[in-house]
């Protein structure tokens, strides 16, 4: 009965590869997000989707592309992985925008070698 789930939990890959991280929420929320927690432990917003429409796209490289097949899923596809992409990626969801609490998944630990 996990509210926000992510797969895989750990991902180790070589530089230059393409990988995807999946996220699903069963809360019936309209908005989903991707955050990146870097080595300095800062959690920073990357993308948000509201009703399958991209709302924001922070200054992340275009190698990162969010894909939402439906309201309950927001996957993150990363092309040509680089060493600096190593981080923990968290998915989150909320009922809507504005003053809405966001609920986070357990995180995906990505290590690029």
């Amino acid at each position, binding site marked *: 009965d996990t509210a926000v789930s992510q797969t895989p939990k750990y991902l180790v890959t070589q530089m230059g590869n393409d990988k995807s991280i999946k996220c699903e929420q069963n809360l019936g929320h309209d908005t989903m997000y991707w955050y990146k927690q870097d080595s300095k432990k800062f959690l920073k917003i990357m993308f948000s989707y509201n009703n399958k429409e991209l709302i924001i796209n922070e200054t992340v490289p275009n190698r990162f592309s969010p894909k939402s097949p439906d309201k309950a899923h927001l996957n993150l596809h990363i092309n040509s992985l680089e060493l600096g992409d190593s981080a923990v990626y968290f998915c989150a969801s909320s009922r809507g925008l504005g*003053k809405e609490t966001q*609920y986070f998944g357990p995180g995906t630990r990505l290590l690029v070698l």
Partner: protein
Amino acid sequence: DQQVKQNSPSLSVQEGRISILNCDYTNSMFDYFLWYKKYPAEGPTFLISISSIKDKNEDGRFTVFLNKSAKHLSLHIVPSQPGDSAVYFCAASAQAGGGADGLTFGKGTHLIIQP
């Protein structure tokens, strides 16, 4: 440019005493503030929030205080329990623009509750 700052990387408190975690922000457009708790290898878990129209919100052992003029908020946990040992993140969002900018997080404070 850190818009949300948690200046104490760690805090050690004796079990049963009060834990006070502090957070400062610089963006005057922020109007909704949240505290999250995070255990190792898990995602952040929502604890408590406060809107800028209030100066206090209480939920059981947790109370958040907001001082808008000082751009400061704090989380009080009383009494502190061993299970409270975790990293606590302060986060903020701005209603303007529909809140589409997501949450802006502080760097976190590692709270250690000593028996």
